[in-house]
């Protein structure tokens, strides 16, 4: 058969080829195909070769579901290949992956949901000393992993490039990541608004926002949107321009920058996504009456006011969305990626006592 005729044959084939298609192509009965593919000795070698050639030509593949099922029914042993989900990060443990406090909650939520739905779950790193894109691709194929969670890929670190059409993908944060996939995250816009309104309720009048310079890129500027919206509801004189920390700033410099800014704009409270905001203000010598709140706490802390994120739910949603994609065989880059946001809850703390 010529190359073009073969292509035509493929084009006509709208469904996945079955052993009946192979049988038709080889001119034998389908039970012969079944036996030939299992190398049953009752089939003559020349017939088997003919069937194998036809199987290759039609692109026949064993249905892994059916095959796994029938194999297990026969042998009644545990399945070796539980489908797996890989959580990818471009920050390796050597570079502090597990030191980030939200990672623990995120992984727990994602892993527990994966187990509840019957998937195995593993964390894979794309970073120096670990995988790059080509080796990651080989690994995923070898392990037959088709469900991926792009977990908080940071800008200015290793990038990821895979033949996406072979994978079902969801992502958390990393809004700058191209292409964009089904997205799940904390509701940072809601968190800033919640912090802002609560600080106002506690009597603070000039509430500022301080975030890292990369954050608007990673979060599609959602904290900024929430902040602008709240500013719009207060008197024009109380609207402060947000502070952007330069990228990779060290603690000492951050303390100086935020304290200078607090004095300059006369802020009486600061919303920040860092838990150490209270310490930074003390360290930099900002006035003691300046309150502070963290917009992404991982658990309620008595000394720190702020919004406690439901990171477990973010993690379990990541897995749920991915399981839905895997189940409906939605591979590749979605035409319209959706975004899911999980709201947090406000907790009072001594870093922002009532002004009265």
């Amino acid at each position, binding site marked *: 058969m010529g190359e073009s005729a073969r292509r035509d044959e493929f084009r006509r084939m709208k469904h996945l080829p079955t052993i009946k298609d192979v049988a038709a192509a080889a001119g034998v009965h389908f039970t012969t195909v079944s036996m030939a*593919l*299992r*190398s049953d000795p009752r089939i003559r*070698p020349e017939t*088997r*070769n003919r069937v*194998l*050639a036809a*199987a*290759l030509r039609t692109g026949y593949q*064993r249905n*892994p*579901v*059916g095959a*796994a*099922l029938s*194999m297990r029914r*026969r*042998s*009644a*042993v*545990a*399945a*070796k290949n*539980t*489908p797996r989900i890989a959580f990818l990060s471009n920050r390796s443990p050597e570079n502090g992956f597990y030191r980030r406090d939200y990672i623990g909650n995120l992984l727990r939520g994602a892993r527990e949901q994966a*187990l*509840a*739905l*019957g*998937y195995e779950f593993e964390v894979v790193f794309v970073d120096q000393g670990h995988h790059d894109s080509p080796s990651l691709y080989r690994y995923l194929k070898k392990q037959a992993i088709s469900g991926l969670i792009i977990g908080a890929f940071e800008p200015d670190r290793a990038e990821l490039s895979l033949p996406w059409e072979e994978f079902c993908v969801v992502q958390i944060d990393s809004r700058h990541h191209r292409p964009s996939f089904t997205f799940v995250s904390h*509701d940072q*816009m809601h968190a800033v608004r919640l912090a802002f309104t609560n600080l106002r309720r506690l009597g603070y009048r000039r509430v500022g926002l301080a975030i890292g310079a990369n954050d608007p890129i990673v979060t599609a*500027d959602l904290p*900024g*949107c929430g902040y*602008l*919206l709240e*500013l*719009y509801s207060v008197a024009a004189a109380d*609207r402060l321009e947000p502070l952007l920390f330069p990228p990779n700033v060290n603690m000492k410099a951050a303390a100086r920058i935020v304290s200078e800014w607090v004095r300059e704009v006369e802020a009486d409270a600061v919303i920040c996504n860092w838990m150490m905001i209270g310490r930074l203000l003390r360290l930099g010598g900002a006035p003691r009456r300046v309150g502070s709140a963290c917009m992404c706490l991982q658990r309620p802390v008595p000394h720190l006011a702020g919004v406690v994120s*439901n990171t*477990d*739910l973010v993690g379990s*949603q990541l897995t*749920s969305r991915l*399981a*839905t994609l895997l*189940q*409906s065989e939605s591979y590749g880059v979605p035409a*319209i*990626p*959706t*975004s*899911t*946001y*999980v*709201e*947090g*809850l406000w907790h009072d703390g001594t870093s922002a006592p009532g002004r009265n």
Partner: protein
Amino acid sequence: MSKAFGTMARPRPAETDVDSPPAVVTMRDIARLAGGVHQSTVSLALRNHPAISLATRRHIQRTAAAAGYHRDPLLDAFNERRLQSGQRKSHPVLAFVVDFGHRRKMDASPLHGHLWHGALRAAETLFHRLELFLVGPGALTPERLDSILFTRGIDGLIVASFRPQTPPLELTWKRYCGVKIECQDWVVPHFTIATDLLQSTRVAYRRAKQLGYSRVGLLLEPGERARSDLAQAGYLVEHSPTRARGKPLIAPGNLSVQRLRKWIRSEQIDVVLAASAATGSVLTAAGFAPGREIGWACLALTEAERTVAGLVADYERAGALAVEQVVSLSRLNLRGPSSSSMITYVPSTWRDGPSLPSRHLLTTSR
């Protein structure tokens, strides 16, 4: 070649204990280990079904975890294939609830038509059946709906974009795996699917600027707090008030015709953004012909509306997502209030239209 295929040959059953993989832990084993409960109790408990007391559920779930039992997605997938071949007669039913007194009224709403069709398709893919329930004057009261759903054992429920004047649906929410489409100001159900008005407003603002408009006005939606907030946030972030572009031009959507005219005149607004599709006729009533004397872009268009520029919302996708969400909740039997509220935004796509020509084509020059 035969070698390559040889690996696919049926594996011989393991002959030695050393090589043999561990035996499958079945629900029967768990039933025995959990102290002699029935296998069906185990099945229900592992699906977190409320028919089993919480204490028993936890006990069985812990036993199963300790014994190394886990759900088999291959079998799940196989079961779904099996269902596909039509052997099973009844699929679980999901309730699709709208606030129309009559089916005809729902059919007259393109938005609800899209939601319904999207939801229907997703339900089919996931082997559920979608059933329409009408709540409102001349149809079911919430109490009646509650008791019908209870009697029929329906626990998956989608609130499909109730209109803002309709009060929040009062049901025994703890019984349901519920998702609402729009209705963002309601507290329950905690899971929401909505169009991304924040992004829509950003896109519309930028497109208007590209087309040469300079005074962009935003009309909010009366009675829709959360949606108005999103539109406002999108507007503000594009407008960047702190970078001295002048004050934001935002007005409540329930202005009288006279006050709307006055607002447009005094602020010299040359383009109006709004989510409500009725804004076009309001502008006309105020004496500004859209597309000739003033630009107008709608932030939430349906597919069929071709005369207005703006963002076409993918309501079919929204309907489908609602079904996917409810099914994934009911698969794990997560009923009632969640630990947190959660919202999924469906993005819209921009479409040019005669209501928003290039700025220089408007007859008015301000």
